[in-house]
């Protein structure tokens, strides 16, 4: 573990926020509307709250094993073979997420900005550009996250301000109409959009101020909850529920609708897409970093630089596995969701429990 790497608490908060907010945010209102109509916000709050225990567990793991990083803890708690299997699951998850992000990004860029350019080129240039960042360590990624964190929040604020003139607040009504049976589906959708905080596993060992870390990480989640809520409600005030249900990227639609008097700011959707690429960039950076770090640990390589290079073609080919948009939306995202359940919820709990039990036995 490199002692020179230091991440401050605000950077960790930013890391959480920028990693979580990414590909999902454009489509989230759509998926929530499909699952829960106008009551999607309940799902956002509930699944946001559901992540908090996981964050507490992750923090506790590192408090139980001070001075060790995730890999050392895993190895000592689970043993080499078992932990390697866990790492492979992690790798699969991160690669699936990375491929999913690259593919969806490519599709959107192709749709909105570059109609004729081959999808492969868009995806490839995206992965390569991020590889340039990912060869460095997590503190650099935390710095990038802090910058995009500011960008994300500023951008959301501007979008909201611009959307206010055309907003119809009564569109939010009626509230709380949906069936309780719709809730699990809604939570499943929303929970996936909270995936990303597991970057804490790699970040916490380098934190400067370990005492207030739990608070910081929870505050990160709260920021995400608020941001998601606001964006969901803004979408509701702009579009009818049927439209949200039928449009895969309602937020882009909201941006398209912005039309200020004087007709100076028109057609903002392209700009939004461009800024959104930068927001995704920080998500992809931490996903890519995590996957290359894991790969290098599986092969016990000292530096993860080689694995970054190896993973460029891997992510690229995985991204092109689904044949069409429907497969991306159904199969690929389902694979990601189920892997996420294991990786985010199950393994940290196992690590934590095993660690506690072992300690009990030793005492």
């Amino acid at each position, binding site marked *: 573990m490199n002692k020179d790497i230091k991440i401050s608490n605000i950077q960790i908060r930013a890391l959480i926020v920028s990693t979580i907010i990414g590909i999902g945010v454009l489509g989230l209102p759509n998926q929530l509307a499909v699952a829960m109509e106008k009551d999607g916000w309940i799902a956002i709050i509930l699944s946001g709250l559901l992540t908090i225990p996981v964050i507490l567990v992750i923090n506790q793991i590192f408090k139980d094993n001070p001075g060790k990083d995730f890999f050392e803890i895993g190895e000592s708690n689970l043993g080499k073979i078992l932990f390697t299997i866990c790492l492979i699951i992690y790798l699969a998850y991160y690669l699936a997420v990375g491929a999913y992000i690259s593919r969806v990004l490519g599709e959107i860029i192709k*749709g*909105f900005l*570059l*109609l*004729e*350019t*081959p999808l492969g*080129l868009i995806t*490839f*240039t995206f992965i*390569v550009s991020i590889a340039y960042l990912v060869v460095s360590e997590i503190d650099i990624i935390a710095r990038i996250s802090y910058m995009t964190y500011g960008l994300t929040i500023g951008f959301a604020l501007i979008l909201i301000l611009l959307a206010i003139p055309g907003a119809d607040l*009564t*569109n939010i*009504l*009626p509230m709380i*109409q949906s069936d309780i049976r719709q809730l699990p589906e809604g939570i499943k959708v929303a929970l996936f959009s909270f995936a990303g905080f597991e970057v804490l596993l790699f970040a916490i060992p380098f934190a400067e101020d370990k005492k207030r870390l739990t608070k910081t990480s929870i505050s990160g989640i709260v920021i995400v909850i608020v941001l998601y809520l606001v964006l969901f409600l803004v979408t509701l005030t702009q*579009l*009818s529920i*049927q*439209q949200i249900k039928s449009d895969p990227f309602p937020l882009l*639609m909201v941006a*398209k*609708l912005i*039309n200020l008097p004087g007709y100076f700011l*028109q*057609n903002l959707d392209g700009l939004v897409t461009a800024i959104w690429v930068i927001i995704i960039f920080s998500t992809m950076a931490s996903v890519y970093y995590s996957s290359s770090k894991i790969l290098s640990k599986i092969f016990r390589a000292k530096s993860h630089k080689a694995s970054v290079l190896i993973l460029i073609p891997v992510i690229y080919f995985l991204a092109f596995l689904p044949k069409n948009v429907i497969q991306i939306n159904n199969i690929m995202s389902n694979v990601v969701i189920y892997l996420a359940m294991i990786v985010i919820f199950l393994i940290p709990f196992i690590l934590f429990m095993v660690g506690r039990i072992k300690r009990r036995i030793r005492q």
Partner: protein
Amino acid sequence: MKKFLLIVMIISLILSSGCWDMIELEDRILPYSVAIDLKLEKDKEQAEDKDFFISFSYPNINALGKNATQEDMAYVINANANSIFEARDEVSSRVHKSIYLKHLNVVVMSEEVFSNERFLRQILDGLKRDFIINKMVNLLITKESAHDIMMKKLGSKRQESVEGLLISLLHNEQMSTSFTPIVLKDFIQYMDHKRAAIIPLAIPEPEISLAGGGIFKDYQFLGYIDKDDNRNITLLNNQAKNKDIDFDFKGATISLFLDEIKSKKKLVRDGEFLKIRYQVEMDGEIHQYIIDEDRRINTQEDMEEIEKALAKIVKDEFTSTIEKLQKDFNADALGILEYLYKFYPKIYKKVEADWDSIFPYLDIEVVVQVNIRRRGLSDF
């Protein structure tokens, strides 16, 4: 260093094979309006399998700017096709320029196209599905040929807006409430909410203008309403704020300007039955009456008298429009069902299924409250 060179080489190799999307601006055509008609009689044989006759109108950039070299402000090109996109490709192969529809602002369609539900649904889906087309594109209906509307030039030498005639007419809506612009997004939203929508009607003669509109429900064309009805509907929907009115008062015509018009709908239950009450409030200003010693407007009583008379007239107007919507069209252009959905979800669930049979018999009451605030400079 070697690594660096390698990366540069790879990137330049990839990039140099490309520039797929680069089309210089002057090689593009950016149409601002499109007209869709059913295919013409004379083309029946040539284009057998095509449904529509589609024309694009775009500005002549040679006629723009300081050193304009040409006179004609706009061109119109057309093609027979099954969709806007087919027409686009067809036309663009003919003019050797790429057609880019992002700046499309108006879609004019003839009544024939609008009355065919399948066509309407297809065209709207195409517009909605496309990544490029702006979802704020305005819709217009015309009784005759949409192509003619597009070809229509202004009689006078008025300065034409760069963005085309129809757009400047549409943007002029603040001045006249005789029509209400509607954009694609709103139209689809209204259709989804079982709400009737009104698409402004473009009239080519004598001078091109917009007035009234065609009324639609569930993607079906129901008929036309005139501009007074249109204004009443927009006022009831709070989409407009003012209106001019004149009526006979004590043997002379009094003209007033009404503004700050606010309408509120409310559900009042009348026993078992639903009853909607519109509470409309407005401020008035007298523009013209008559110079006559006997007919001065000096006292509070005079004012109240005018207010009373006016309220009755306005109320009658509103009621007749509502009745037309209920009886003639059975079209809920006022968004009453949507109102129930938002504020009374339980009632909504009950009435939603047979709203078509409930709406015509719905008891809608209009209460008008006029406050005349000013009488101009004259103290008569």
